[in-house]
């Protein structure tokens, strides 16, 4: 099992290196990173720009830059964001918690929801409840993330005024205590989270249902029933427990997909997250920021994959290679 995990970790690390190199070269294959910056702000004297170039090593040969880049990335030195006028690391760290919170909360809740709903639908295959459930999830799967968010915003934000329209906190508010603060935060995050969770439940419920149906046809389910276990025990302890394995793999694979969801949702609800940051970095040509944001996103996704691998090897005794 250890060997398996080491192998997986190594392969993820290689993936990571490839991705980072790709980003390095892609980002530099465009225009001069500082050109746009200069264009957009003619008041900056050329000497200052040159100084900056020198300071960030942009006057060195490309291979030198590449090596420096790799080394400094791992030291957490992502360079300087020209749009935010602050070190990239600081910009990212302010925003990362929001995205992580959005992602982990929605992944956990939607996975649990999908496991239960999918298993329940599979157990009741062909019955009315199953048909209704499958059709609803199919429809939810067809809804674009961001549009679902817009509809929520329109209905619950504008028309019913139940939830705020943007941001993560009421502006200008002084919190009396932590409880107030958490309440305000949850109030702001309800709609974005609901968007992400509902969409993902729609996707995974069908998947879980399929996997559970497959498992329910296996011989060991007959054995479990034969032993005299109750339906619930057969379903959860034997069928669901076994279908969880492919579910874990898929959740890991879909982590990248959820980052997409985060970017779009952060845009709709104007949340100060990393997803939105990537978009801003690219559109404003702020390439240190871009590298940093990509670094963090890739690392997050790859770590999530590694966690899934570890979880998998704990859940499946057959993993021994």
């Amino acid at each position, binding site marked *: 099992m250890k060997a398996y995990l080491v192998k997986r970790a190594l392969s993820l690390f290689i993936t990571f290196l490839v991705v980072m190199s790709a980003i390095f070269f892609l*980002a530099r294959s465009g225009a001069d990173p500082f050109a746009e910056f200069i264009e957009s702000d003619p008041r900056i004297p050329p000497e200052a720009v040159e100084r900056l170039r020198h300071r960030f090593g942009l006057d060195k040969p490309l291979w030198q830059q590449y090596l420096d880049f790799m080394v400094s990335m791992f030291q957490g030195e992502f360079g300087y964001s020209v749009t935010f006028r602050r070190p990239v690391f600081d910009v990212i760290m302010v925003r990362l918690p929001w995205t992580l919170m959005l992602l982990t909360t929605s992944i956990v809740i939607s996975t649990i929801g999908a496991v239960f709903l999918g298993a329940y639908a599979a157990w009741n*295959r062909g019955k009315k409840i199953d048909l209704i459930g499958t059709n609803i999830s199919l429809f939810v799967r*067809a809804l674009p993330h*961001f*549009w679902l968010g817009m509809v929520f915003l329109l209905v619950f934000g504008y028309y019913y005024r139940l939830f705020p329209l943007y941001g993560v906190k009421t502006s200008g508010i002084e919190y009396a205590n932590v409880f107030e603060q958490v309440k305000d935060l949850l109030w702001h995050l309800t709609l974005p989270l609901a968007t992400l969770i509902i969409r993902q439940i729609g996707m995974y419920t069908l998947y879980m249902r399929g996997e559970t149906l497959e498992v329910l046809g296996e011989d060991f389910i007959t054995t479990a029933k034969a032993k005299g276990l109750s339906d619930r025990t057969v379903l959860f302890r034997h069928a669901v427990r076994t279908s969880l394995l492919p579910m874990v793999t898929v959740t890991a694979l879909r982590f990248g997909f959820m980052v*997409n969801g985060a970017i*779009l949702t952060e845009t709709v609800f104007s949340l100060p997250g990393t997803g939105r940051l990537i978009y801003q970095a690219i559109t404003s040509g702020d390439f240190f920021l871009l590298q940093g944001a990509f670094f963090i996103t890739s690392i997050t996704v790859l770590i999530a*994959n590694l966690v899934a691998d570890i979880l998998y090897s704990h859940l499946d005794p057959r993993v021994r290679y």
Partner: protein
Amino acid sequence: MALKRRLTDWRNRLVSSAFIFRHNRAGVIGLVIVLFFISMAIFAPFIAPFNPYERIDRSLLPPGGVYLLGTNDMGQDIFSELIWGARVSLSIGFTVALVVMFIGTTVGVVAGYTGGLVDEVLMRFADIILVLPSIPLMILIAAIMGRHNFYVMILALSVVGWGGLARMVRAVTLSLKERTFVEAARALGASGGHIMAKHILPNTAPLILSSVIYQAVGAMMAEAGLAFLGLGDPTAKSWGMMLHYAQTAGGWWGANGNPMWNWIIPPGLCIALVVLGLMLVGQAVEEIVNPRLRRRR
């Protein structure tokens, strides 16, 4: 003679497939939805009352009267935009699906058949594509290529889309490789390229065809997301881009501070319906191709 037999064989298969399909009510409904939108795309110039790229009245008019869904911030008819949007969204979706099919199949067959280092490298790339979030990758590609272009969209969408298909085709190829007819062809001295093209490819065809529909779904969804972020081609407005403008140019405040549901709801609903239709068709096709799935219902 052989050709004729092959043709009748295909026809019989098609007829029996059509039979199964007809009995899948959801599939038929899906097909009707998809055909509806395809005709909308084809006949857009005849259906749409106005030119969606032309200012025809004041901005941000409410729905009703001459303008079924009102006008946007540029004084363009939203209903006409919606009709024309079908063209862009569908053509991007299907084009990308075809490109992805081509890349994914080629990579999958080559990796599976050749094995060794080639396989290892190709699959590592497929994994990277699969694991990484696609939107940042696409934004990056679009940004590098200069973003205001229909073809760049297709390129970006295709680059991020082929991973899953390649893996699937590779798996099928691996199992086909062991089968007797392939071994026989190899024993007779057929070249690798010949075997891949003549023996392996035709046998992966049903699987690929059914997955193409899902590729189109994925492409349309991704296109909508990208366009929503403002990375679409402004001279070819898709539904996603309509939502981008609704989000950034007045959909939320309208002419008098009220949000314009008539601008926000319809484009997304169209995307959802087409995607739903395609998924229903995809399911039905999958059941024909893979009878084991029929049990699942």
